[in-house]
């Protein structure tokens, strides 16, 4: 048995952990979150808010077991992943498919060509260079964040619940990246969405948390609707959704890049709609900043390093399709660039430390899509990989700060924490330098490559490059604004909080250090071709992904020739912009702290627009939530009650009315006729009745008179 044959086990370990937590967690960790979550005035005062140090960890043996078990399952997955990837590297074909059984074993259907295919999807795994990168990122970063959570969540209620959800998330995320077909990928896709929902709403006694959770799930579902239609179209055209079969078909002679909107372009666009939901791109990015309601390790793992990159992964996985759909690719690039600069502009002025990082994530994901859009799929994955290190690091660092300050997230009440939290400071500094794009650190290599590809690729353009460049400057600015506000200057929190501020325990700082090392070093496997001093071994990332990106690479090969001087110039430009951003932040927040306020006052319109996130949430809320959903729902409920059911009740009323009418008719007309007859008989018979007196003498008299009349009549004749 080799690791390659056991790849099905990789997602199963964390699933087992999640199942144990679901069934036994409550027994292991009997501390109830529920006992305290009552509204004020109803019962005991709420006690589980924030991250207060409510009594140092009285961790029972059950809790210790959870701390061992749940990170342990992810560690096992990591070990099996490393083993499998190592074996994969030795395979000549660099791909390994393992099909366990047919999951959806539907019935035959007619494809677009009229031939019959079966509506089916495997429960199957595909390990190739692309999924190899993903499982290493997911299990590696995932493991570090699990370890960190032992410290971070140690004092929280619902410890077992947290780790159960986290393990479940890792299971679904691994299913997502290991699936060998789109339908099974969608299982992971929806599953991580569910875990995201559960973890954003982890503090579910807070309305804001459950609102954010709902928002995340529903906005993602809008994207998923697109994804589902994309898959159906894929079934319709190719008869299958298995990656290998779809790619084989696309590589066939029947397909060439589409000049206009053909089936492939529409299919790609539908898939991309799914990606905009999951990876928080315009116009569906609005859920991600709100997702910061979840505990900070969740933000680090799900909403920075792994889940939100699923859309990028899916697009890169579909590179054969997207490279045949240039119209869609243009849209991908433009949406990516637009999202990058939009989110970065919002991040400039946010005061919540996690929100800055959230918008930063949206922005960085925009970079990844920009790279995909210009056909540089491997660069997108490269940035995904470096971003996982430094963004996870930054979130965990922010978590460490929040932890130290007893739950404070507003940077206006931070400052001067450099000495108090040295490890956090230095590691976060490494992360900030990396994301800012300072040469030598991870973010530099990937971001610079993206910018270069955007400029030089035939699908790229100078305009997109300029947007990317400006965003890079903004990125450097907002990150160092964050660093300066948090760690430098005078402390702005109250004395009590300051006195209690302390560095986090090793269980939290060691993951920070490991991620910092990654943020510094991870980029050295993607050194620019321009740096000819470095041998090809320093460019192994691109070569590693080559088997997956064959078609895209072939398209990229005919990229226009640009001289080295241009490339050096652009590289210098991007570094200069990054340094410029840092310098401005330094002037604004260290040298002359009164400047930002004056600037805000001189352009209040722009400042407020940015602070209020371009009012996108307000517009969506008015149009979609209040307008379409609630307004439409209310209107239709009324319609249902009054018109549709009104019709039914009206029929009932009509039936009763006609029955009343019939009763009246019956009483007065039908029966009336009968009674009229009897009345008439009565009337007619009345004079006769007068004669019938019952007196014999009268009868005799009438008789005699009658006889006389008759005789008289005859006598007269």
């Amino acid at each position: 048995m080799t690791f390659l044959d056991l790849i099905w086990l990789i997602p199963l370990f964390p699933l087992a952990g999640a199942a144990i937590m679901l069934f036994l967690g409550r027994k292991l960790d009997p501390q109830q979150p529920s006992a305290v979550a009552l509204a004020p005035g109803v019962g005991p005062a709420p006690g589980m808010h924030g991250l207060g140090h409510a009594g140092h960890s009285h961790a029972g043996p059950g809790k210790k077991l959870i701390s061992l078990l749940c990170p342990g399952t992810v560690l096992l997955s990591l070990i099996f992943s490393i083993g499998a990837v190592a074996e994969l590297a030795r395979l000549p074909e660099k791909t390994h498919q393992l099909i366990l059984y047919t999951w959806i074993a539907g019935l035959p259907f007619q494809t677009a060509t009229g031939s019959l295919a079966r509506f089916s999807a495997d429960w199957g795994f595909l390990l190739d260079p692309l999924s190899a990168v993903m499982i290493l990122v997911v299990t590696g970063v995932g493991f570090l964040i699990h370890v960190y959570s032992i410290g971070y969540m140690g004092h929280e209620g619902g410890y077992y619940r947290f780790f159960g959800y986290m393990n479940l998330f890792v299971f679904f995320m691994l299913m997502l990246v290991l699936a060998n077909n789109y339908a099974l990928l969608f299982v992971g896709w929806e599953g991580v969405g569910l875990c995201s929902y559960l973890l954003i709403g982890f503090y579910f006694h807070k309305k804001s948390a459950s609102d954010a959770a709902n928002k995340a799930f529903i906005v993602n579902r809008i994207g998923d609707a697109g994804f589902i239609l994309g898959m159906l179209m894929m079934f319709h055209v190719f008869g299958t959704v298995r990656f290998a079969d779809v790619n084989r078909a696309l590589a066939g002679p029947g397909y060439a890049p589409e000049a206009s909107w053909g089936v492939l372009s529409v299919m790609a666009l539908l898939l991309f709609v799914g990606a905009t939901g999951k990876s928080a791109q315009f116009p569906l990015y609005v859920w991600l900043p709100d997702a910061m309601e979840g505990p900070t390790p969740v933000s680090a793992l799900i909403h920075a390093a792994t889940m939100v990159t699923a859309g990028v992964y899916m697009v890169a996985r579909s590179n054969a399709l997207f490279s045949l759909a240039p119209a869609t690719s243009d849209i991908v690039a433009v949406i990516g660039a637009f999202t990058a600069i939009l989110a970065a502009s919002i991040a400039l002025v946010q005061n919540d430390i996690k929100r800055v990082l959230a918008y930063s994530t949206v922005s960085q994901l925009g970079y990844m899509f920009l790279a995909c859009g210009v056909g540089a799929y491997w660069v997108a994955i490269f940035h995904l990989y470096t971003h996982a290190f430094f963004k996870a690091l930054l979130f965990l660092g922010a978590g460490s700060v929040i932890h130290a300050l007893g739950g404070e997230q507003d940077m206006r009440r931070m400052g001067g924490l450099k000495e108090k939290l040295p490890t956090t400071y230095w590691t976060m500094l490494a992360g900030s330098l990396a994301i800012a794009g300072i040469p030598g650190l991870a973010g530099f290599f990937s971001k610079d490559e993206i910018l270069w590809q955007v400029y030089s690729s035939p699908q790229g353009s100078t305009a997109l490059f300029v947007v990317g460049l400006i965003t890079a400057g903004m990125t450097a600015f907002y990150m160092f604004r964050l660093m300066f506000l948090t760690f430098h200057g005078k402390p702005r929190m109250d004395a009590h909080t300051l006195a209690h501020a302390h560095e986090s325990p090793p269980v939290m700082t060691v993951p920070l250090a490991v991620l910092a090392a990654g943020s510094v070093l991870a980029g050295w496997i993607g050194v620019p071709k321009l740096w000819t001093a470095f041998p090809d071994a320093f460019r192994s990332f691109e070569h590693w992904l080559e088997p997956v990106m064959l078609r895209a690479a072939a398209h990229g090969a005919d990229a226009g020739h640009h001289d080295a001087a241009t490339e050096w110039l652009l590289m210098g430009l991007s570094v200069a912009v990054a340094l410029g951003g840092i310098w401005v932040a330094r002037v604004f927040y260290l040298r002359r702290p009164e400047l930002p306020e004056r600037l805000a006052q001189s352009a209040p319109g722009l400042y407020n627009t940015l602070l209020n996130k371009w009012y996108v949430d307000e517009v969506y809320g008015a149009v979609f939530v209040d307008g379409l959903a609630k307004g439409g729902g209310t209107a239709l409920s009324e319609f249902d009650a009054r018109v549709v059911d009104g019709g039914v009740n009206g029929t009932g009323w009509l039936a009763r009315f006609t029955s009343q009418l019939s009763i009246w008719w019956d009483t007065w007309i039908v029966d009336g006729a009968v009674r009229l007859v009897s009345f008439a008989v009565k009337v007619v018979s009345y004079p006769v009745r007068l004669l019938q007196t019952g007196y014999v003498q009268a009868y005799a008299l009438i008789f005699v008179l009658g006889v006389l009349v008759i005789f008289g009549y005859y006598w007269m004749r």
Partner: protein
Amino acid sequence: MSEHLLSIVLFTPLAGLIVLLFLPSENKNLIRAWANLTALAGFLVSIPLATRFDKNQPGFQFVEKADWIPSLGVKYYIGIDGISLLLVLLTTLVGFLAILSSWSAITEHVKAYYAMFLLQQTGMIGVFVALDFFLFYVFWEVVLVPMYFIIGVWGGPRKLYAAVKFFLYTLAGSVLMLLGILTLYFQHHRQFGYYTFEISELMKLDLPLGLQQWVFWAFFIGFAIKVPMFPFHTWLPDAHTEAPTAGSVVLASILLKMGTYGFLRFSLPLLPKASIDPLIVQALVGLSIVAIIYGALVCLMQQDWKKLVAYSSVSHLGFCTLGIFALNPNGIAGSVIQQINHGISTGMLFLLVGAIYERRHTREIGEYGGLAHVMPVFATVFAFAMLSSAGLPLLNGFVGEFTILQGAFEANRWWAALAVTGVVLGAAYLLWLYQRTMLGQVTNPKNLGLPDLNLRELAVFAPLIAWAVWIGVYPKPYFEVLEKPVAQLVERVRPGYLQQAVTAHAEAPVAPAVRGAR
């Protein structure tokens, strides 16, 4: 014994009912125990149907046939194919769970209550196994009576209005359906010279399109009211809301499926020309899509927990009818699977409302909030039911919806594009309901001391949860059972559909293609 297996399944509840009548009314627990035992037995005897069913054999299995009213040509003729098999199993299991769930909820007229349920069980099974149209009609009407009393006697405040509405509305539909049946009956006599109600005989009729259309609409009224399809659905929210919990469960999980089953068993095979008539298809698909979106939007603004679940049925059944009138294998198979799924998911949702109603005696959503703190197990089960209903992959709902959408997409991609909005809205109304009832803080002191689900209640949910996971993770057996009957249906309505591959493209399709599968 085994050659009468189906009759045993059919009459076990009735036999139990006869014994029940002789039990002393005052001994309520004895009556409860006996009724539960009978229902359990009813479920157990139905299991061999599944294990002995031969999925490779086309046509009907476990067939029994005997003369009943020879002068009219009426026969006692029963048998099942894959479609009826699944619905019969759904009936025996959910019927049992509904009876089990009533143990503490019903305290008055206990004997009559259980008698009604057992009678109803036999009626419903009869509908799904009858192969004689007259026999079918008898069972169809038999079901009506117990449900009328269940709503009218053990229901909520507006029970009389709801019961009468339910009864009259459904009866009106049945009468038109009867006219349709009689038309076929006399046509058969005209063409073949003898009277019969056998479906397989009536299928031999050669009817002009015009007549088929008339009969189709007559059937349509009967079935569409039962499903219910928009705009014939308004009896449903009232009936559901006023019915006791077990009544709602049976109504939603099983009774509604009589309508969709009617389309599959009678409309499509007996009236194939009318069934593919473009006007009819467009009308029915249009109504289905309206039901999906309309039902979901109406759900969003409901203030009554139970009514919300009732309207969600309208939306979900819209998917089922959409699948049927996509008129291709996956649409129909997905529809049947979704009928089972709806039985499981909505059954659970109604049971959950029932459990909470038993504790608090209100269905007003605003009365609740933060229950997850007080009843964590209940909240977990509710989350599960919600996700199953919202079609989360690896649970049952996804398999059904996805397959139906595939069928719809194949027929017309805009149908799928419109129907898929139901997936989004479905998540919206369920999550919002969950938030309003389960999450947040406990704002209403009356909810503070609520006991969590007890073991008996959990036992009701456990089989449904297991079933939901099974369909979600390994739906293959369901597709296999459905393959033959669905292929026959499609062949009947669209001859040649499944041989298309023979004439079509010679180039090797990339998919694991099935050539000429029949």
